[in-house]
């Protein structure tokens, strides 16, 4: 059974600082996604990572994937208040498991002005 662990689960940081959110998963995967969720809202797609070594960047966010370590990171550079949200990684099982995605518990990020 595919398990996805994110850490930290809660993160309070100051503007202009850098930080990284980690996503570990337990079995082989052919796809990994990062989503953002604002309070009371649905999920917004941020990145799709499909191969080992993949790196995607959008603004102050950068995501990478290491399939050998079964690890993805979401790096935040020079954080701004607008990035406050909950971030989820979601992993697809390529080993015959469910076709749907398995989500981590989410990282609740608060960026203080």
């Amino acid at each position, binding site marked *: 059974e595919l398990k*996805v662990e994110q850490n930290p689960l809660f993160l309070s940081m100051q503007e202009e600082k850098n930080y990284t959110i980690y996503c570990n998963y337990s079995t082989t995967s*052919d*796809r990994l*996604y990062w*989503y953002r969720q604002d309070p009371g*809202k*649905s*999920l*917004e*797609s941020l990145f*799709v990572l*499909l191969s080992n070594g993949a790196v995607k960047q959008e603004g102050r966010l950068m995501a990478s994937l290491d399939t050998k370590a079964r690890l993805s990171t979401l790096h935040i550079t020079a954080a701004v208040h607008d990035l406050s949200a909950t971030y*989820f990684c*979601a992993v*697809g099982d390529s080993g015959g498991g*469910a*076709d*749907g*995605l*398995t*989500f*981590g*518990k*989410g990282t609740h990020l608060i960026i203080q002005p």
Partner: protein
Amino acid sequence: GAGVSQTPSNKVTEKGKYVELRCDPISGHTALYWYRQSLGQGPEFLIYFQGTGAADDSGLPNDRFFAVRPEGSVSTLKIQRTERGDSAVYLCASSFAFRTDTQYFGPGTRLTVL
């Protein structure tokens, strides 16, 4: 273009009642997913449709839950004999075709079972 839409946005029902939740995917998307999100948790997969057929229903918690997609577009999630533990936000997502395509999520239906 329009995103994924879900109706109703909120549904309050009594224990034991039957409910239907509707999802209208992005036009042209053949893949459709239902997830359930409890407070403070990540979404949990329920069922996946490819076209009209349920390709994977391994996430449905029990036989009180059923979903259909008769014409390969709109889908309905049906819950019989609702229980208080069914209270959650039910999310629908669609993607273009392939398993690696991005899943786009709708706004969800908040179900409260009293």
